[in-house]
């Protein structure tokens, strides 16, 4: 499903999975945070962001992702990131984000982790 803000997403067992692609790396990527807040308002408390379609995350993408993380934290919701490539993982490490994020290799692992936390 493509949402009104052009982000591919799906809901699996009350877990929302978002696929930001390269959309994250531009100003319009702010819509991802808006979509997360909408999902939170709809009662979703578990979100996976799947980066399988994201080759590179730039500084705009990092800033927007921080907005998403803060929105999730403010709502006491849980966020897991999956399918992060090596370059992005290194970048998260450089920026000191690895310790702050829950990261799983695959989307299925991420969903499983969130379901088990319910």
């Amino acid at each position: 499903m493509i949402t009104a803000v052009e982000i591919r997403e799906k809901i699996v067992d009350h877990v929302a999975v978002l696929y930001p692609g390269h959309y994250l790396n531009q100003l319009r990527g702010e819509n991802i945070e808006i979509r997360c807040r909408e999902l939170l308002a709809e009662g979703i408390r578990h979100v996976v962001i799947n980066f399988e379609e994201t080759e590179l995350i730039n500084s705009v993408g990092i800033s927007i992702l921080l907005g998403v993380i803060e929105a999730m934290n403010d709502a006491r919701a849980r966020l897991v990131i999956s399918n992060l490539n090596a370059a992005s993982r290194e970048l998260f490490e450089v920026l000191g984000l690895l310790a702050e994020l829950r990261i799983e290799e695959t989307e299925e692992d991420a969903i499983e982790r969130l379901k088990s936390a319910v």
Partner: protein
Amino acid sequence: MKLVLRKLLHNLGSLTELGAEITSTHDFEEIVRTSLHTILGTLAIPKGAIAQYSARPREARIIAAKGISGVIDERIALGRDEVERFKSRSKPVIVKAERNGFSQFIRRNDELFRRLHTHQVVPMITRGQFVGMIFLSEKFSKADYDDEDLAIIETIARHIGIAIYNHCLLLRFKSKAEDNRRLYREMRQLYHDTVKAFGAAIDLKDSYTSGHSHRVAKYAEAIARKMGLVGAELEHVAVAAYLHDIGKIVVERAIINNPRPLTEREYRELNRHVTTGYEILSHIRQPWKEIAYMTKCHHERVDGKGYPQGLVGEDIPLGSKIVTLADSFDAMMTDRPYRTRLPLDQALADLRHQAGKQFDTEVVRAFCRLLLDEISGFARQRTLLMMIGLNFDRETVVNMLDSMIAEFNQSSAEA
């Protein structure tokens, strides 16, 4: 890849993207918001804001914010000495640091800085001018900023400063250009008012033709518009029509108002008005340089039998040909000392008879089409009818106009 290298690449990528954004054609608000994301994302800072400085009044206004709501347009007052101190340093001011030199400024804005979660204030200096400030929170990881972080912040702040500086420069240019446009509009209005005043002054000399210049201008402008003239060309025709008789200012009033047929000498004196008018108007250069010659030729005829130069056909400016027809038609449609006004159908018959002789056929055709449109209700404005009135046989006139247009179309096709 070594993490140091990864960080360097990330920083370089940020600077490259920022450079592209600043030189992009995106609107200013978009550039500033993207720039804010860039500086925050470069060092994983969750909250920040950008404020633009204005010297009058001396304050900074928040124009972009991330991670903080309700702060856009908040204003931060600055003292003259504080601006000078910001200008003399490019390094960030760490809010909680002791002896940072800005304790008064920070105390005064304590409440706002709390809402902004401000850890440091980064001044933006471009070409020696203080253009604004960036407010940054702690890093997401809560790690301290190291010297390398501060260096990249300074560099990015310089880039954003350039964007703001250029934007202000552009606004100043735009404002100046708008001032000039307004002055130009006012000047043109002044010219037009002066032209109308001259037209009225000329008409006052002739007790029988009150309002003649005004009507000729209206006829001429409407015909010119029908012929497809727009902008400056259209304006020139209207102005030339207003001023076509300006040379009559030096003709004796007794000759102008003479109810009897004029003598040879009186004709010569009266006909001088076109060259006199040219001499008066040739002093006008911009913006109506062409009108002097246009008025000089308004008694030329396309068959070469006019005056003062006896020009033929295409040698006569189009504007003059239009004024010629407008002038003659108004003369036919107004009472003269030696005759009453002509009925409209008779005036049209005269135009038809003189097409290709006194008048340019294309101009007569445009006039006929315009009049027909007005009578039939197809025209948006009824410029001609407002002056002619409705005292004519509609069917006769419409038939005449149809027939004249068909005749002119045919002769035009044959040519």
